[in-house]
């Protein structure tokens, strides 16, 4: 077995009496898509917050490659190679599409301290940005203001910004959210290819997409992983069906 790129070990987080994360250990191996599913309020967002930074776990650790990143800030984790996309687009709406991707490229270079030369004339940075846009199919709209993009295009741009970081692992929070059938389909194809570059930890509600993409699925209910396995195993699991459909059996 190859070493995991991203892993959590016994993560725990409580908010007062609410146990949001209960002893969660998951890992993400090279070349795979590992999907986290679960009903609303299962603690998926809290888990992502602890993996990407922003929420500090009460106990347990987060590992990226060989390093323990538990005490890293969000920015330091990104520097270490974690690429994240948001459920609700966190894009600079007043800026152009190209400028948004440039942000990712600058983040990767970790050199924002260039005060004099115009950003849009930095050819190396522009080339990397355009390459990322090309891949998600937004190259033609690179000069558009982001606020004018369709919802689907914004989702693609989210992914492009993360691509521009060339991360070791992706964490994607509902990349299909709000996409139509067609958009969802092309995003599925895209992510399916992307996993060979860097593995993807995918949190998604769209079950068709999850079943089409995931190499492994972990089911999170009340902060606990109740089942983890291949698509077929999860589909067949009685426990999972109960969690999703209620316990009437």
């Amino acid at each position, binding site marked *: 077995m190859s070493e995991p790129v991203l892993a959590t070990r016994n993560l725990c987080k409580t908010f007062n009496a609410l146990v949001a994360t209960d002893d969660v250990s998951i890992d993400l191996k090279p070349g795979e898509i590992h999907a986290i599913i679960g009903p609303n309020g299962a603690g998926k967002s809290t888990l992502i917050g602890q993996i990407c930074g922003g929420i500090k776990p009460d106990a347990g650790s987060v590992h990226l490659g060989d390093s323990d990143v538990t005490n890293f800030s969000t*920015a330091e984790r990104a520097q270490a190679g974690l690429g994240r996309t948001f459920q609700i687009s966190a894009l600079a*709406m*007043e*800026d152009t599409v190209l400028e948004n991707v440039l942000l990712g490229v*600058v983040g990767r270079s970790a050199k924002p301290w*260039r005060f*004099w*030369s115009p*950003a849009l004339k930095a050819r190396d940075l522009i080339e990397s940005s355009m390459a990322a846009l090309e891949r998600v199919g937004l190259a033609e709209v690179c000069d558009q203001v982001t606020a004018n993009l369709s919802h689907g295009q914004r989702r693609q741009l989210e992914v492009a910004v993360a691509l521009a*970081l060339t991360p070791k692992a992706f964490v994607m929070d509902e990349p299909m959210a709000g996409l139509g059938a067609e958009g969802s389909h092309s995003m599925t194809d895209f992510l399916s290819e992307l996993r060979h570059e860097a593995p993807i930890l995918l949190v998604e509600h769209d079950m068709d997409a999850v079943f089409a993409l995931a190499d492994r699925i972990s089911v999170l209910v009340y902060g606990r992983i109740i089942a983890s396995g291949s698509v077929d195993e999860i589909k067949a699991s009685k426990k999972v069906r109960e969690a999703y459909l209620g316990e009437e059996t």
Partner: protein
Amino acid sequence: MIREGYINAIVLFGFLLIPICALIIEEPYTITLATRAAVLALAAVGLNIALGIGGLVSLGHAVFFGLGGYAMGILAFHAQNYIPVELGPLTINGTKSMPIIWLTAVLVSAFAALIIGLLSLRTTGVYFIMITLAFGQMFFFFSISWSAYGGEDGLSIYVRNVFPGVNTLVPIQFFGLCFTALCVALFVQSRLRASIFGLVLNSARQTPVRAETVGLNPMRLKLLAFVISGAITGLAGALFADLNRFVSPTMFSWQLSGELIVLIIIGGVGRLAGPVIGSALFVTLEHFLGEFTDFWHIWLGLILLLIVLFARGGIIGILTGKDGPHV
């Protein structure tokens, strides 16, 4: 709709033309007014970098304006009295040389901005506004009680300071100096805005969480913007003090911080020529309406109200038909 670049050029050209016309028809007071507008514009350009690009609504920029003013006041005061400044073991001679005064003003303001920024940038929104206001009031009351430099009455400087190759006592020459400083500051701002730092800072204003997730520290970016901003406003303070040959605690007053924000909003937040238009309008209203009534601020308020309600991009926004950045 007119392109913003043309507007910038027209505004600056007009700004230059008025005092030249005033010189020809021998109206030296108009030149002084134009100088006042240029210096206020310079102060607002400083604030515009923090406010318009970084989204930092600072209600304490009078701190830097005042520090610049007092840097000039104190150095010139010691020079005219031939008493050196005693700073512990250090003895510094006063000076009447503008370049040295300017450098001091810029360094002192930048340092103050660094400290104030470090403390206040932990907060955002209304809290940031309040904490910067609090710093402003601290400096204001300190200056009132600092009797060595005039306390409440302020400090008068008898003769304007000197600049190599320029006769600063001639109004048009002093205007030229201030106008040049304004143009340099505008050039710096435009380069900064287009640079990678400007791009990243501008995104961090819109979506700080994104800046973090690509591995950038928004706090550091904003701190640096605040320091640059404070330094420019500090330079304006030194020039303002030299224009009036007088420094007083009113330079630290929160009303001044508020006026700088008003100038920017009227002209256009984040727009290059925004503070220039705002300041020109402000000084014009102050002078012409001020002749008829002491309550000219009512009209300024009305303009501000109309702009906030109907033209979020300020006057530049109306002219270009494009909304400015949202702060």
